[in-house]
């Protein structure tokens, strides 16, 4: 059980560290980190799927579902509590995920990738024409409250949202880490390697993929709700292929050895994006493409595998990182 205690201990330390860091950091960095963590959560969902061998290019669907669920709750039902809004986002994502999973359960590889992409674009197209949800302009949200506390100054609001996002992120990340280390987590790896053997041993690959898909959908919904609160605005672009593609990029950049790497990567990418949008607005996608190729060529295990190489002398190694993207 030491694995679980270790993860929980790390989670507590992470929370404390983030709280302190957020307090000391300048406001612009806090805002970036908040948004980065929300996106990191969606990428974490893709990592969960990737461990089973599937890559979803359409997580924007759930990101969007979570965001619009939070948005509608705030505007139509006057729900302002951040925790409730995020929970609604998670539920929205999860319900959508559970509905869609059986449709996609039989597909792998490029099929699964392109079908999820198509789904994301279909949602985008429908939202664009749904004027009751704001059409292509989307919806605006006002600042949320946190368990009754309604921050006055905007800096306090950013910090409060950062703390809330960090807490949610750490909890989600810890739960994922525990799941990845469990038997079911190992089974995802196995399903990726050899579905036939998994079935012949008596386990169901459909079920494994379905659970991973539901996890990814819920995380997507949470990320979407958090982003909505962070940006104060949602629109159909949340489901556009470029958004979905960025989550994939994040997942590949971080690799699936380390959960922490996902959020480190997210912050780096978010910093990169704000720099790029100031100086090179038309090359962001292309830059991501070039980096993606470089990562696949030179660091197939993602950033997480770098961390693993530092740890390898101490602990028992996980499945060799070189195999992760082979």
């Amino acid at each position: 059980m030491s694995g679980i205690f270790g993860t929980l201990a790390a989670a507590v330390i992470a929370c404390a560290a983030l709280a302190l860091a957020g307090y000391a950091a300048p406001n612009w960095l806090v805002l970036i980190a908040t948004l980065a963590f929300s996106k990191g959560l969606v990428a974490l969902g893709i990592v969960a799927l990737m461990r089973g061998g599937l890559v979803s290019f359409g997580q924007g669907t759930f990101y969007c579902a979570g965001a619009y669920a939070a948005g509608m709750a705030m505007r139509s039902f006057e729900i302002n509590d951040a925790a409730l809004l995020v929970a609604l986002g998670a539920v929205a994502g999860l319900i959508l995920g559970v509905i869609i999973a059986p449709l996609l359960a039989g597909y792998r590889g490029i099929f699964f990738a392109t079908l999820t992409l198509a789904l994301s674009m279909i949602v985008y197209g429908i939202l664009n024409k749904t004027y009751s949800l704001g059409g292509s302009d989307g919806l605006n949200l006002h600042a949320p409250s946190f368990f009754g506390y309604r921050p006055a100054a905007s800096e306090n609001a950013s910090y409060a949202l950062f703390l809330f996002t960090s807490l949610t992120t750490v909890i989600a990340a810890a739960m994922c880490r525990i799941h990845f280390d469990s038997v079911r987590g190992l089974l995802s790896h196995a399903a990726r390697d050899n579905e036939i053997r998994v079935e012949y041993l008596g386990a169901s690959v459909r079920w494994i993929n379905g659970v991973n898909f539901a996890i990814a959908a819920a995380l997507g919904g949470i990320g979407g709700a958090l982003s909505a609160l962070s940006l104060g605005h949602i629109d159909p672009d949340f489901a556009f292929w470029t958004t979905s593609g960025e989550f994939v990029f994040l997942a590949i950049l971080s690799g699936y050895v380390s959960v922490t790497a996902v959020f480190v990567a997210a912050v780096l990418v978010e910093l990169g994006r704000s720099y790029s949008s100031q100086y090179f607005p038309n090359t962001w996608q292309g830059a991501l493409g070039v980096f993606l190729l470089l990562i696949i060529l030179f660091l197939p295990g993602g950033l997480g595998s770098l961390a693993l190489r530092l740890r390898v002398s101490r602990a028992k190694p996980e499945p060799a990182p070189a195999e992760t993207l082979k």
Partner: protein
Amino acid sequence: MKLAAAILIDGVIDASWLFIVAVGLTLVFGVLNILNFAHGSLFAVGAYAAASAVGWYYGGGLGPPFLGYLLMFGAALAVALILGPLMERGVLRFFYRRDEVVLVLVTYALFLILEDATKLIWGTESYYASEPYALLGNVSFFGLSYVGYDFALIGLAVVTGFLLWFGLNRTISGKIVLAVIHDRDISRAMGVNVTRVFAFAFTLGVFLAALGGAFTAPKISVQPGIGITVILLSFAVVVIGGLGSVEGAAIAALFVGFARAAAIHLVPWAELFIVYLVMALVLAFRPEGLFQRASARKI
């Protein structure tokens, strides 16, 4: 009745450019076992290249109007000869031995790069290449007016399909390509230069995408974003038709063309949804598409 005729005719016209593009995608898959995500961008590059060429040619009044078509063809050829080898020899071949998922990511990366490259070269405004579109006059069917160009496009699709079929099935080079499609390792063992077949097949795929783009350019406004629509539509066509099948691509293009035309006339906001619904229905009955490839047993 008029609506039905409109859907039918629009569907066939749509199916034409869809076939040209999708058959390139399915061919690349058949030979290299790669479903090229960047195929839609290659369509876009073809469209932009043709639009530029046309703009330069007609803008300068440089010669007889019908030569513009040759120029469009040339633009597609240029795109293929430059980008085909560049992409296949320059990038893809380093990843042939890797996992399927990796190849998806690689072609996706190429897609991203091409999308921004087009923006860098041609900017973000729309291009129009309407002169070739007007050259062939108008035709009337059932009281509906159509542009002659669209019917010429149907002709182009038929000719392309026939040439491909003939090339693959009746020429020696074609049969070599078919052999590689069936089993590349055995082909290699029999002395076939599989590397060259790969390069050729990929370049041909690029050419077909660019050709589709070049000859669709006069009908549309060429702008950023057409790439993603095209890859999503051609993917549906390829999946419905069966991966690697030329005949399948033809029939599937008609399916998708009709579905799209029906959607555009009746429920325009659900156009992509209808296409994928059709795909889902076909897959429910024929999980590997209309024309399935025979596959060897695994265990």
